[in-house]
Structures are given as C-alpha cells and as structure tokens.
C-alpha cells in the first residue's frame, strides 16, 4: 500500500503503478488530460514509464467550460 495525493485529496494505492495504469484505474482517457507529478509536468508519451511512489503528489487536469 502506498499513499499519494491526487488533486489535493489523499488516496491509497494497492501497489506502485505507472500513470497509464493509474488513469485506467480511475477510468480516465489519457488523451484528454495532463498530469503534473511532484510539480513536474509529465509528457503524455511517458505516462507508461512514470512510476508513482509513496508520498507522491499528482495533479490531473483537463479542459472545462470557461471564458
């Protein structure tokens, strides 16, 4: 079990996993979002290679209506 912060909320993950798996787990289409991993932006192309570790902080954002 690892502890992570996603979009400001604490979450527990069963195991270390990469961003692609994380998005899949949350049922989020990766092509519609951007991810900031410990304040660093993660290129979409590397989602599969970036592992989430204990204590990591993630921001997962997308576009919504705004003016």
């Amino acid at each position, binding site marked *: 079990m690892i502890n992570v912060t*996603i*979009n*400001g909320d604490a979450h527990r993950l069963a195991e270390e996993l990469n961003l692609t798996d994380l998005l899949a787990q*949350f*049922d*989020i289409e990766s092509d*519609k*979002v*951007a*991810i*900031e991993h410990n304040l660093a*932006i*993660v*290129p*979409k192309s590397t989602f599969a290679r970036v592992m989430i570790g204990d204590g990591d902080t993630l*921001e*997962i*954002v*997308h*576009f*919504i*209506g*705004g*003016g």
Partner: protein
Amino acid sequence: MSDKLIVAGKEYNSRLIVGTGKYKNFEETKHAVEASGAEIVTVAVRRVNISKPGEPMLVDYLDPKKYTYLPNTAGCFTGDEAVRTLRLAREAGGFNLVKLEVLGDQKTLYPNMPETVEAAKTLIKEGFNVMVYCNDDPIQAKILEDIGCCAIMPLGSLIGSGLGIQNPVGVRIIVENANVPVLVDAGVGTASEAAQAMELGCDGVLMNTAIAEAGNPILMARAMNHAVQAGRDAYLAGRMPKKRYADPSSPLAGLI
C-alpha cells in the same frame, strides 16, 4: 473579399471568440458556439473529478479538431499560477496558443499588469503564442506587443459586467498603435456593443457572459455573429461624417 483574422500565423474566418463557461449544460454550450460562428473557444483548465469517472466532458461536445481551444488562466492571481496552468494546458491539448490573464482582485477581475508582463515573458520564452488580457492603457499594450505577445486583448469593461466599451478612446489608440491583432476581451453586453468594438478598428471580440447569460443564449450567439460582421464591415467601409444639422436625402430639384 477575403478579410481574415490572423493570429499566430493561423487564419480564421470568424472574428468572434467565445467562452464556454456559464451555460446550463454542454448541449447549450454546443449550440451557442455553433450559432456564434466562432472558430476559437476559450476553455479553463481544472482538476479532473476522479471520484466521478466517465462524466461527460467538454471535448465530447466541442471537437478540438474542429474548434481551436484557447486555454485561459481565469482564477490565477499570480504570474506563476498562470504559467503553471498554461504549461499543463499545453500538455493536455498539445497546442501553443493560449490566453494569459493574471487577475488583480476578485471584485474587479482587472488585470495585474506587472504580473501579466512577467508571465508573458516567461511563456513566450517557452514557445507559447500568448494572447493577453490587459487594461486599456496604450503604453502597456505596446510593452506587451514588444515582448512578443501575438494578440493584445484590452478589457471593454469589467469581466462579466456587460457595461460595454467604457473607454473607446483608449481602445482606439491601442488599435492605431498595434501591429498585432487587438481584440476587445470582456465587457460587451449586447450586439450593438460588439459592433461598436469592431467599428473602433478592433480585429475581433472575445465574450462569454453576454451570450451565456442572455435570456436566449443561442439567439444571442447568432446576434453576436452578425454584430461582429456588421461592425467589421462598417469599419472597413468607413462611416459617414457626422453633421450638426440636417442634410436631405432626396434631391430638391424637380419638386412639383
């Protein structure tokens, strides 16, 4: 006659940019945007609600391949927040065109110009094409153009106020001095005000509330579509001179 809006090297037929906020639902957003004829839509960057997977998303209603998404930094009160937001936006959407707005306070949502200038410099260095929300100060506008912003967007009046073009002289002078597109951003409340903005020589108008909070948003969107074309044509045509007294339109000769 071909009269296109060119921003950051890309051509657009419509000179109206619309926001996508404040609508009842995505259906209404979609139909209003279609009625407006806009090719560029502003969008906000926000956290995904991971507790509700599979919620409908804006992109399902406005195809990013059909519309140019213009991510904004609404809600950012420092340059750093704005830069961070737009870096994420670029990664999320994969495009460089962005709308920078660094706000000064909650009450007025007036731009904080020093923060805006610094953020613009950073973004431009990183290769962004920056359309920048700014005050109606011609000197500030020139500074923003000089550091490389691709469009200057002075406020017509306070965001969401619908008070129209408060300072036509300021906007007119910004247009006269600018070598990049100038768009009135915020303040327009109804169609005649959108036309007036274009008659001042602006290259375009950006609005959201005037459409979204109209009694009938789709109908108002169509009104704005026509109004921007009307104002543009009137500007290009050149209006009649004003006269202090009357001037008959029918010849006096040949009266019975």
